[in-house]
Protein backbone atom coordinates (compact mmCIF):
# COMPACT_ATOMS: atom_id res chain seq x y z
CA UNK A 1 0.00 0.00 0.00
CA UNK A 2 1.15 3.52 -0.66
CA UNK A 3 1.86 5.78 2.32
CA UNK A 4 -1.24 7.46 3.69
CA UNK A 5 0.34 10.75 2.71
CA UNK A 6 3.00 10.20 0.05
CA UNK A 7 4.17 13.80 0.49
CA UNK A 8 4.56 13.36 4.24
CA UNK A 9 2.69 16.51 5.18
CA UNK A 10 0.01 14.93 7.32
CA UNK A 11 0.01 12.28 10.01
CA UNK A 12 -1.68 8.93 9.43
CA UNK A 13 -4.42 9.85 11.88
CA UNK A 14 -5.17 13.09 10.05
CA UNK A 15 -5.40 11.30 6.71
CA UNK A 16 -7.52 8.49 8.12
CA UNK A 17 -9.90 11.06 9.60
CA UNK A 18 -10.21 12.75 6.21
CA UNK A 19 -10.54 9.48 4.28
CA UNK A 20 -13.23 8.23 6.61
CA UNK A 21 -15.12 11.53 6.57
CA UNK A 22 -14.86 11.75 10.34
CA UNK A 23 -16.57 15.16 10.21
CA UNK A 24 -19.35 13.93 7.95
CA UNK A 25 -17.93 15.01 4.61
CA UNK A 26 -14.92 14.56 2.44
CA UNK A 27 -13.90 16.04 -0.90
CA UNK A 28 -12.29 13.91 -3.56
CA UNK A 29 -11.22 14.82 -7.06
CA UNK A 30 -9.08 13.35 -9.78
CA UNK A 31 -6.63 14.87 -12.19
CA UNK A 32 -4.55 13.40 -14.97
CA UNK A 33 -0.95 13.81 -16.02
CA UNK A 34 0.56 13.15 -19.40
CA UNK A 35 3.92 11.37 -19.40
CA UNK A 36 6.33 10.58 -22.21
CA UNK A 37 7.60 7.09 -23.02
CA UNK A 38 10.25 7.43 -20.30
CA UNK A 39 7.61 8.40 -17.71
CA UNK A 40 8.76 12.02 -17.64
CA UNK A 41 5.98 14.45 -16.86
CA UNK A 42 4.83 16.35 -19.95
CA UNK A 43 2.01 18.23 -18.28
CA UNK A 44 -1.54 18.06 -17.04
CA UNK A 45 -4.33 17.03 -19.35
CA UNK A 46 -7.90 18.26 -19.39
CA UNK A 47 -9.34 15.93 -21.98
CA UNK A 48 -10.13 12.93 -19.79
CA UNK A 49 -13.87 12.97 -19.22
CA UNK A 50 -14.14 10.02 -16.88
CA UNK A 51 -12.46 6.77 -16.07
CA UNK A 52 -11.96 3.84 -13.81
CA UNK A 53 -8.94 2.00 -12.50
CA UNK A 54 -8.57 -1.59 -11.35
CA UNK A 55 -5.90 -3.85 -9.92
CA UNK A 56 -5.84 -7.64 -9.93
CA UNK A 57 -2.86 -9.10 -8.10
CA UNK A 58 -3.39 -12.50 -9.74
CA UNK A 59 -3.46 -11.24 -13.33
CA UNK A 60 -0.42 -11.04 -15.59
CA UNK A 61 -1.13 -7.39 -16.30
CA UNK A 62 -2.16 -6.26 -12.89
CA UNK A 63 -3.34 -2.72 -13.22
CA UNK A 64 -5.73 -1.56 -15.90
CA UNK A 65 -7.81 1.52 -16.54
CA UNK A 66 -10.62 2.66 -18.76
CA UNK A 67 -10.64 6.26 -19.81
CA UNK A 68 -13.23 8.21 -21.76
CA UNK A 69 -11.39 11.00 -23.50
CA UNK A 70 -12.22 13.91 -25.72
CA UNK A 71 -10.44 13.35 -29.01
CA UNK A 72 -9.06 16.66 -30.17
CA UNK A 73 -6.22 14.97 -32.03
CA UNK A 74 -3.73 15.88 -29.33
CA UNK A 75 -3.08 12.36 -28.04
CA UNK A 76 -0.19 10.28 -29.32
CA UNK A 77 -1.53 6.85 -28.51
CA UNK A 78 1.75 5.18 -29.36
CA UNK A 79 3.93 7.21 -27.00
CA UNK A 80 1.84 9.08 -24.46
CA UNK A 81 1.17 7.66 -21.06
CA UNK A 82 -1.41 8.79 -18.55
CA UNK A 83 -1.07 8.91 -14.80
CA UNK A 84 -4.32 9.56 -12.92
CA UNK A 85 -3.91 11.21 -9.56
CA UNK A 86 -6.46 11.15 -6.75
CA UNK A 87 -6.70 14.23 -4.57
CA UNK A 88 -8.29 14.27 -1.13
CA UNK A 89 -8.97 17.72 0.27
CA UNK A 90 -7.76 17.95 3.84
CA UNK A 91 -9.89 19.81 6.34
CA UNK A 92 -8.09 22.60 8.11
CA UNK A 93 -6.07 23.79 9.84
CA UNK A 94 -3.42 23.35 7.18
CA UNK A 95 -0.66 25.24 8.99
CA UNK A 96 1.13 26.07 5.77
CA UNK A 97 0.82 22.57 4.35
CA UNK A 98 -0.77 21.78 1.01
CA UNK A 99 -4.53 21.63 1.59
CA UNK A 100 -4.76 18.18 0.09
CA UNK A 101 -3.19 14.72 -0.08
CA UNK A 102 -2.56 13.14 -3.46
CA UNK A 103 -1.93 9.58 -4.56
CA UNK A 104 -0.71 8.58 -8.02
CA UNK A 105 -2.80 5.71 -9.37
CA UNK A 106 -0.42 4.12 -11.85
CA UNK A 107 1.18 4.79 -15.21
CA UNK A 108 -0.91 3.60 -18.10
CA UNK A 109 -0.25 2.96 -21.77
CA UNK A 110 -3.15 3.66 -24.08
CA UNK A 111 -4.85 1.53 -26.69
CA UNK A 112 -6.26 3.15 -29.81
CA UNK A 113 -9.93 2.31 -29.99
CA UNK A 114 -12.47 3.59 -32.47
CA UNK A 115 -13.61 7.13 -32.22
CA UNK A 116 -17.25 7.84 -31.62
CA UNK A 117 -19.18 10.97 -32.36
CA UNK A 118 -22.42 11.79 -30.60
CA UNK A 119 -25.38 13.78 -31.82
CA UNK A 120 -23.77 16.94 -30.46
CA UNK A 121 -20.75 16.37 -32.70
CA UNK A 122 -18.34 15.73 -29.83
CA UNK A 123 -15.71 13.11 -30.71
CA UNK A 124 -14.79 10.76 -27.89
CA UNK A 125 -12.82 7.58 -27.37
CA UNK A 126 -13.24 4.83 -24.83
CA UNK A 127 -9.61 3.99 -24.17
CA UNK A 128 -8.47 0.78 -22.54
CA UNK A 129 -5.23 1.41 -20.70
CA UNK A 130 -2.70 -0.98 -19.18
CA UNK A 131 0.22 -0.62 -16.86
CA UNK A 132 3.75 -1.16 -18.18
CA UNK A 133 3.56 -4.92 -17.78
CA UNK A 134 1.94 -4.81 -21.19
CA UNK A 135 5.30 -3.68 -22.60
CA UNK A 136 6.92 -6.85 -21.29
CA UNK A 137 3.97 -9.00 -22.32
CA UNK A 138 4.06 -7.70 -25.89
CA UNK A 139 7.84 -7.85 -26.20
CA UNK A 140 8.70 -11.41 -27.25
CA UNK A 141 12.21 -12.73 -27.70
CA UNK A 142 13.09 -13.17 -31.37
CA UNK A 143 15.63 -15.95 -30.76
CA UNK A 144 16.09 -18.62 -28.18
CA UNK A 145 16.72 -16.76 -24.92
CA UNK A 146 19.17 -18.30 -22.53
CA UNK A 147 20.67 -17.48 -19.17
CA UNK A 148 23.95 -19.19 -18.36
CA UNK A 149 24.52 -21.34 -15.30
CA UNK A 150 26.10 -19.38 -12.49
CA UNK A 151 24.34 -16.13 -13.38
CA UNK A 152 22.75 -14.39 -10.44
CA UNK A 153 18.97 -14.43 -10.91
CA UNK A 154 18.72 -10.75 -10.15
CA UNK A 155 21.46 -10.00 -12.68
CA UNK A 156 19.47 -11.89 -15.28
CA UNK A 157 16.37 -9.92 -14.29
CA UNK A 158 18.28 -6.64 -14.52
CA UNK A 159 19.49 -7.56 -18.00
CA UNK A 160 16.01 -8.54 -19.12
CA UNK A 161 14.42 -5.35 -17.82
CA UNK A 162 17.20 -2.98 -18.83
CA UNK A 163 15.91 0.53 -19.37
CA UNK A 164 12.92 0.21 -17.05
CA UNK A 165 12.79 2.14 -13.80
CA UNK A 166 12.74 -0.55 -11.18
CA UNK A 167 13.02 -1.47 -7.56
CA UNK A 168 14.92 -4.76 -7.70
CA UNK A 169 15.87 -6.36 -4.39
CA UNK A 170 19.22 -8.13 -4.88
CA UNK A 171 19.53 -11.87 -4.32
CA UNK A 172 22.66 -14.00 -4.05
CA UNK A 173 20.99 -17.01 -5.65
CA UNK A 174 22.45 -18.12 -8.97
CA UNK A 175 21.21 -20.45 -11.68
CA UNK A 176 22.57 -23.94 -11.08
CA UNK A 177 22.14 -24.82 -14.72
CA UNK A 178 21.51 -22.87 -17.91
CA UNK A 179 17.93 -21.96 -18.58
CA UNK A 180 16.39 -21.41 -22.03
CA UNK A 181 13.16 -20.10 -23.43
CA UNK A 182 11.72 -20.69 -26.89
CA UNK A 183 11.70 -17.93 -29.52
CA UNK A 184 8.47 -15.99 -29.22
CA UNK A 185 8.32 -16.24 -25.44
CA UNK A 186 7.07 -12.98 -23.90
CA UNK A 187 9.65 -11.24 -21.75
CA UNK A 188 7.04 -11.06 -19.01
CA UNK A 189 6.92 -14.86 -18.93
CA UNK A 190 10.71 -15.05 -18.71
CA UNK A 191 10.76 -12.40 -16.01
CA UNK A 192 8.12 -14.15 -13.93
CA UNK A 193 9.89 -17.50 -14.37
CA UNK A 194 13.11 -15.98 -13.05
CA UNK A 195 11.27 -14.33 -10.18
CA UNK A 196 9.46 -17.52 -9.27
CA UNK A 197 12.73 -19.46 -9.22
CA UNK A 198 13.94 -17.36 -6.29
CA UNK A 199 10.50 -17.14 -4.68
CA UNK A 200 9.94 -13.49 -5.54
CA UNK A 201 6.54 -11.92 -6.18
CA UNK A 202 5.40 -11.91 -9.77
CA UNK A 203 6.34 -8.66 -11.49
CA UNK A 204 4.26 -5.56 -10.93
CA UNK A 205 4.62 -1.83 -11.41
CA UNK A 206 4.06 0.62 -8.61
CA UNK A 207 1.99 3.79 -8.88
CA UNK A 208 4.96 5.86 -10.04
CA UNK A 209 5.70 3.45 -12.87
CA UNK A 210 8.62 1.52 -11.33
CA UNK A 211 8.96 -2.23 -11.78
CA UNK A 212 8.89 -3.96 -8.41
CA UNK A 213 10.84 -7.21 -7.98
CA UNK A 214 11.03 -8.29 -4.36
CA UNK A 215 10.96 -11.47 -2.32
CA UNK A 216 7.56 -12.99 -1.74
CA UNK A 217 6.41 -12.62 1.82
CA UNK A 218 3.42 -14.55 3.05
CA UNK A 219 0.55 -12.31 4.13
CA UNK A 220 0.56 -14.17 7.43
CA UNK A 221 3.99 -12.69 8.06
CA UNK A 222 2.97 -9.23 6.95
CA UNK A 223 1.25 -6.76 9.21
CA UNK A 224 -2.09 -5.31 8.25
CA UNK A 225 -1.69 -2.10 6.30
CA UNK A 226 -5.21 -0.79 6.84
CA UNK A 227 -8.11 -1.74 9.05
CA UNK A 228 -11.64 -1.72 7.68
CA UNK A 229 -14.35 -1.95 10.30
CA UNK A 230 -18.01 -1.14 10.67
CA UNK A 231 -17.29 1.34 13.44
CA UNK A 232 -17.64 5.12 13.77
CA UNK A 233 -14.99 5.58 11.11
CA UNK A 234 -16.46 3.01 8.78
CA UNK A 235 -16.12 3.56 5.05
CA UNK A 236 -17.91 0.33 4.15
CA UNK A 237 -20.93 0.87 1.96
CA UNK A 238 -23.48 -1.47 0.47
CA UNK A 239 -23.57 -5.18 0.77
CA UNK A 240 -20.75 -7.57 1.57
CA UNK A 241 -20.58 -11.14 0.38
CA UNK A 242 -18.60 -13.99 1.84
CA UNK A 243 -18.03 -17.20 -0.05
CA UNK A 244 -16.50 -20.51 0.89
CA UNK A 245 -15.10 -23.08 -1.52
CA UNK A 246 -13.56 -26.01 0.29
CA UNK A 247 -14.19 -28.69 -2.29
CA UNK A 248 -10.98 -28.97 -4.27
CA UNK A 249 -8.44 -27.23 -2.09
CA UNK A 250 -5.37 -29.49 -1.85
CA UNK A 251 -3.72 -30.27 1.45
CA UNK A 252 -0.43 -31.65 0.20
CA UNK A 253 1.90 -30.08 -2.32
CA UNK A 254 4.71 -31.95 -4.00
CA UNK A 255 7.17 -30.00 -6.14
CA UNK A 256 9.89 -31.58 -8.24
CA UNK A 257 12.74 -29.87 -10.01
CA UNK A 258 14.27 -32.19 -12.58
CA UNK A 259 17.16 -31.17 -14.80
CA UNK A 260 19.08 -33.56 -17.03
CA UNK A 261 22.46 -32.72 -15.56
CA UNK A 262 21.45 -32.33 -11.91
CA UNK A 263 20.16 -34.45 -9.11
CA UNK A 264 16.40 -33.90 -8.81
CA UNK A 265 15.08 -31.77 -5.99
CA UNK A 266 11.81 -32.63 -4.30
CA UNK A 267 9.83 -30.71 -1.77
CA UNK A 268 6.61 -31.74 -0.07
CA UNK A 269 4.44 -29.61 2.14
CA UNK A 270 1.46 -30.99 4.02
CA UNK A 271 -1.26 -29.01 5.66
CA UNK A 272 -1.96 -31.04 8.77
CA UNK A 273 -3.11 -28.19 10.94
CA UNK A 274 -6.24 -29.30 12.84
CA UNK A 275 -7.42 -25.69 12.85
CA UNK A 276 -7.45 -25.55 9.05
CA UNK A 277 -10.71 -26.84 7.53
CA UNK A 278 -8.89 -28.18 4.47
CA UNK A 279 -6.04 -29.92 6.27
CA UNK A 280 -5.42 -33.67 6.07
CA UNK A 281 -6.63 -33.93 9.66
CA UNK A 282 -9.88 -32.05 9.06
CA UNK A 283 -10.67 -33.69 5.72
CA UNK A 284 -9.60 -37.14 6.71
CA UNK A 285 -8.03 -37.63 3.30
CA UNK A 286 -5.24 -36.29 1.18
CA UNK A 287 -5.61 -34.15 -1.94
CA UNK A 288 -2.26 -33.74 -3.65
CA UNK A 289 -1.15 -30.91 -5.89
CA UNK A 290 1.80 -32.39 -7.81
CA UNK A 291 4.05 -30.18 -9.95
CA UNK A 292 7.06 -31.63 -11.70
CA UNK A 293 8.20 -28.79 -13.94
CA UNK A 294 9.47 -26.44 -11.27
CA UNK A 295 12.56 -24.30 -11.58
CA UNK A 296 14.21 -23.37 -8.32
CA UNK A 297 17.61 -22.06 -7.39
CA UNK A 298 18.03 -24.52 -4.52
CA UNK A 299 16.21 -26.78 -2.06
CA UNK A 300 15.35 -23.91 0.25
CA UNK A 301 13.69 -22.02 -2.57
CA UNK A 302 11.71 -25.08 -3.60
CA UNK A 303 10.59 -25.60 -0.01
CA UNK A 304 9.57 -21.96 0.26
CA UNK A 305 7.66 -22.25 -3.00
CA UNK A 306 5.79 -25.31 -1.75
CA UNK A 307 4.83 -23.40 1.38
CA UNK A 308 3.75 -20.48 -0.78
CA UNK A 309 1.57 -22.67 -3.00
CA UNK A 310 0.08 -24.17 0.12
CA UNK A 311 -0.67 -20.78 1.54
CA UNK A 312 -2.12 -19.40 -1.68
CA UNK A 313 -4.28 -22.45 -2.32
CA UNK A 314 -5.53 -22.61 1.22
CA UNK A 315 -6.63 -18.99 1.39
CA UNK A 316 -8.92 -19.56 -1.57
CA UNK A 317 -11.38 -21.22 0.73
CA UNK A 318 -12.72 -17.92 1.97
CA UNK A 319 -13.19 -14.78 -0.03
CA UNK A 320 -15.05 -11.60 0.76
CA UNK A 321 -16.43 -9.02 -1.65
CA UNK A 322 -17.32 -5.64 -0.24
CA UNK A 323 -17.41 -1.98 -1.16
CA UNK A 324 -16.04 1.14 0.47
CA UNK A 325 -15.63 4.79 -0.28
CA UNK A 326 -12.74 5.22 -2.70
CA UNK A 327 -9.47 4.58 -0.84
CA UNK A 328 -6.82 5.62 -3.35
CA UNK A 329 -3.78 4.54 -1.36
CA UNK A 330 -4.28 0.86 -2.22
CA UNK A 331 -1.59 -0.86 -4.22
CA UNK A 332 -0.92 -4.44 -5.30
CA UNK A 333 -1.79 -7.36 -2.98
CA UNK A 334 -2.20 -5.27 0.15
CA UNK A 335 -2.90 -6.91 3.48
CA UNK A 336 -5.86 -5.48 5.36
CA UNK A 337 -7.95 -6.29 8.38
CA UNK A 338 -11.70 -6.51 7.98
CA UNK A 339 -14.04 -6.39 10.94
CA UNK A 340 -17.65 -6.95 9.94
CA UNK A 341 -19.76 -8.37 12.77
CA UNK A 342 -22.75 -9.07 10.53
CA UNK A 343 -20.60 -11.61 8.68
CA UNK A 344 -18.78 -12.67 11.84
CA UNK A 345 -15.56 -11.46 10.28
CA UNK A 346 -12.62 -10.13 12.21
CA UNK A 347 -9.54 -11.28 10.37
CA UNK A 348 -6.61 -10.43 8.19
CA UNK A 349 -7.06 -10.70 4.44
CA UNK A 350 -4.96 -10.19 1.36
CA UNK A 351 -6.45 -7.96 -1.29
CA UNK A 352 -6.86 -9.91 -4.50
CA UNK A 353 -8.39 -7.13 -6.58
CA UNK A 354 -10.00 -3.73 -6.37
CA UNK A 355 -11.71 -1.35 -8.76
CA UNK A 356 -13.32 2.07 -8.74
CA UNK A 357 -14.52 4.88 -10.95
CA UNK A 358 -12.47 8.04 -10.98
CA UNK A 359 -15.18 10.38 -9.77
CA UNK A 360 -16.36 11.88 -6.55
CA UNK A 361 -19.00 9.79 -4.82
CA UNK A 362 -17.87 6.56 -6.45
CA UNK A 363 -17.49 3.39 -4.44
CA UNK A 364 -14.55 1.02 -4.49
CA UNK A 365 -15.09 -2.71 -4.82
CA UNK A 366 -12.66 -5.00 -3.02
CA UNK A 367 -12.14 -8.71 -3.36
CA UNK A 368 -10.28 -10.15 -0.41
CA UNK A 369 -8.90 -13.57 0.30
CA UNK A 370 -8.73 -14.89 3.81
CA UNK A 371 -5.27 -15.06 5.33
CA UNK A 372 -4.95 -18.37 7.19
CA UNK A 373 -2.15 -20.44 8.61
CA UNK A 374 -1.80 -23.82 6.95
Amino acid at each position, binding site marked *: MQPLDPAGNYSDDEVIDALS*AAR*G*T*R*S*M*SFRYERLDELNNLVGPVDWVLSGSVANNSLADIKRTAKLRVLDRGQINYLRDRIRPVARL*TMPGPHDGRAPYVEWPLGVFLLSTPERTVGTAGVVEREVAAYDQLVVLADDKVADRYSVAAGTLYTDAIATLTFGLARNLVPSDKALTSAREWEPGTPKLRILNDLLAAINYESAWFDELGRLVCRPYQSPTDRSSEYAY*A*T*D*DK*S*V*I*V*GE*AAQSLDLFSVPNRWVLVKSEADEAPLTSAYTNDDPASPTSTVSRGRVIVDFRDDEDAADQATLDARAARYAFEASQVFESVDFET*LVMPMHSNADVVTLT*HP*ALSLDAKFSEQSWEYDL*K*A*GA*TMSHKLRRVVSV
Partner: protein
Amino acid sequence: MSRAVSDIISGVAPALVGVWVHDPLDASDTVRSYPFADGRTEHLAPESSVLTVVGRTRPVVEFGEALDESLKVTIFVPFGPEHDEAVQWWRDAVLARRAIFYRDNRGRAFYGVLASGVDPVDGRAGTALAVELTRVDWEA
Protein backbone atom coordinates in the same frame (compact mmCIF):
# COMPACT_ATOMS: atom_id res chain seq x y z
CA MET B 1 6.25 64.02 -27.50
CA SER B 2 3.18 66.05 -26.66
CA ARG B 3 0.39 65.32 -24.33
CA ALA B 4 -2.94 66.84 -23.46
CA VAL B 5 -4.63 66.93 -20.11
CA SER B 6 -8.38 67.03 -20.05
CA ASP B 7 -10.45 69.10 -17.73
CA ILE B 8 -11.44 67.46 -14.49
CA ILE B 9 -15.07 66.48 -14.62
CA SER B 10 -17.14 65.70 -11.57
CA GLY B 11 -19.92 63.23 -11.95
CA VAL B 12 -21.45 59.95 -10.90
CA ALA B 13 -20.77 56.80 -12.82
CA PRO B 14 -23.89 55.57 -14.54
CA ALA B 15 -25.67 52.96 -12.48
CA LEU B 16 -25.90 49.51 -13.93
CA VAL B 17 -29.55 48.83 -14.48
CA GLY B 18 -30.98 45.47 -15.37
CA VAL B 19 -28.72 43.16 -17.33
CA TRP B 20 -25.67 43.76 -19.45
CA VAL B 21 -24.34 41.10 -21.78
CA HIS B 22 -21.65 40.82 -24.37
CA ASP B 23 -19.78 38.29 -26.46
CA PRO B 24 -16.34 38.08 -24.77
CA LEU B 25 -14.69 37.59 -28.15
CA ASP B 26 -16.08 40.90 -29.43
CA ALA B 27 -17.09 42.94 -26.44
CA SER B 28 -17.25 46.42 -27.96
CA ASP B 29 -19.48 45.46 -30.88
CA THR B 30 -21.79 43.13 -29.04
CA VAL B 31 -22.44 44.72 -25.67
CA ARG B 32 -26.11 45.32 -24.93
CA SER B 33 -28.11 46.32 -21.91
CA TYR B 34 -31.56 45.18 -20.98
CA PRO B 35 -33.02 47.41 -18.31
CA PHE B 36 -36.06 45.25 -17.68
CA ALA B 37 -34.95 42.01 -16.16
CA ASP B 38 -36.91 40.21 -13.50
CA GLY B 39 -37.29 36.96 -11.60
CA ARG B 40 -33.63 36.18 -11.28
CA THR B 41 -33.19 32.76 -9.72
CA GLU B 42 -29.79 31.37 -8.87
CA HIS B 43 -28.79 27.75 -8.49
CA LEU B 44 -25.52 26.88 -6.82
CA ALA B 45 -24.65 23.28 -5.94
CA PRO B 46 -21.36 21.44 -5.56
CA GLU B 47 -21.01 17.98 -7.04
CA SER B 48 -21.95 15.66 -4.21
CA SER B 49 -23.08 12.18 -3.31
CA VAL B 50 -24.78 11.04 -0.15
CA LEU B 51 -23.50 7.64 0.91
CA THR B 52 -24.95 5.40 3.56
CA VAL B 53 -22.11 3.81 5.48
CA VAL B 54 -22.41 0.53 7.33
CA GLY B 55 -21.91 1.00 11.05
CA ARG B 56 -22.64 4.73 11.12
CA THR B 57 -26.00 6.20 11.95
CA ARG B 58 -25.81 9.12 9.59
CA PRO B 59 -24.66 9.26 6.00
CA VAL B 60 -21.42 10.59 4.64
CA VAL B 61 -21.45 13.26 1.96
CA GLU B 62 -18.66 13.20 -0.57
CA PHE B 63 -18.00 16.32 -2.59
CA GLY B 64 -16.26 16.63 -5.91
CA GLU B 65 -14.59 19.68 -7.37
CA ALA B 66 -17.32 20.46 -9.90
CA LEU B 67 -19.73 23.29 -9.19
CA ASP B 68 -23.12 23.46 -10.83
CA GLU B 69 -23.98 27.15 -11.08
CA SER B 70 -26.77 28.63 -13.13
CA LEU B 71 -29.00 31.66 -13.31
CA LYS B 72 -32.51 32.02 -14.62
CA VAL B 73 -33.74 35.46 -15.59
CA THR B 74 -36.63 36.81 -17.58
CA ILE B 75 -35.69 39.74 -19.78
CA PHE B 76 -38.42 41.97 -21.12
CA VAL B 77 -37.86 43.81 -24.39
CA PRO B 78 -40.57 46.39 -25.06
CA PHE B 79 -41.72 47.00 -28.58
CA GLY B 80 -39.87 49.92 -30.09
CA PRO B 81 -37.14 50.77 -32.52
CA GLU B 82 -34.61 48.49 -30.86
CA HIS B 83 -36.93 45.60 -30.15
CA ASP B 84 -36.07 43.32 -33.04
CA GLU B 85 -32.35 43.82 -32.71
CA ALA B 86 -32.49 43.28 -28.96
CA VAL B 87 -34.38 39.99 -29.30
CA GLN B 88 -32.23 38.85 -32.19
CA TRP B 89 -29.14 39.27 -30.00
CA TRP B 90 -30.26 36.35 -27.88
CA ARG B 91 -31.12 34.23 -30.90
CA ASP B 92 -27.63 34.89 -32.27
CA ALA B 93 -26.08 34.04 -28.91
CA VAL B 94 -27.82 30.68 -28.88
CA LEU B 95 -26.81 29.89 -32.45
CA ALA B 96 -23.20 30.92 -31.81
CA ARG B 97 -22.93 28.09 -29.23
CA ARG B 98 -20.44 30.16 -27.24
CA ALA B 99 -20.19 31.58 -23.78
CA ILE B 100 -21.45 35.11 -23.21
CA PHE B 101 -20.48 37.45 -20.40
CA TYR B 102 -23.31 38.42 -18.06
CA ARG B 103 -23.43 41.26 -15.55
CA ASP B 104 -26.31 42.69 -13.61
CA ASN B 105 -27.09 45.41 -11.14
CA ARG B 106 -26.90 42.96 -8.24
CA GLY B 107 -23.20 42.46 -8.78
CA ARG B 108 -23.31 39.17 -10.61
CA ALA B 109 -20.69 38.81 -13.31
CA PHE B 110 -19.76 35.53 -15.00
CA TYR B 111 -19.32 33.66 -18.24
CA GLY B 112 -22.37 31.58 -19.06
CA VAL B 113 -23.75 29.41 -21.78
CA LEU B 114 -27.31 29.24 -23.05
CA ALA B 115 -27.27 25.46 -23.02
CA SER B 116 -31.05 25.17 -23.03
CA GLY B 117 -31.60 28.03 -25.47
CA VAL B 118 -34.01 30.92 -24.92
CA ASP B 119 -37.79 31.04 -24.99
CA PRO B 120 -39.06 34.33 -26.42
CA VAL B 121 -42.73 34.94 -25.68
CA ASP B 122 -44.43 37.82 -27.48
CA GLY B 123 -46.98 39.80 -25.51
CA ARG B 124 -48.96 43.01 -25.97
CA ALA B 125 -46.16 45.33 -24.92
CA GLY B 126 -43.10 43.46 -26.01
CA THR B 127 -41.23 40.18 -25.82
CA ALA B 128 -40.31 38.28 -22.69
CA LEU B 129 -37.19 36.13 -22.96
CA ALA B 130 -36.78 33.32 -20.45
CA VAL B 131 -33.04 32.78 -20.21
CA GLU B 132 -31.06 30.18 -18.30
CA LEU B 133 -27.32 30.68 -18.15
CA THR B 134 -25.04 27.86 -17.06
CA ARG B 135 -21.81 29.24 -15.67
CA VAL B 136 -18.65 27.95 -17.37
CA ASP B 137 -14.91 28.46 -17.09
CA TRP B 138 -13.55 30.79 -19.75
CA GLU B 139 -9.94 31.41 -20.58
CA ALA B 140 -9.06 34.54 -22.50
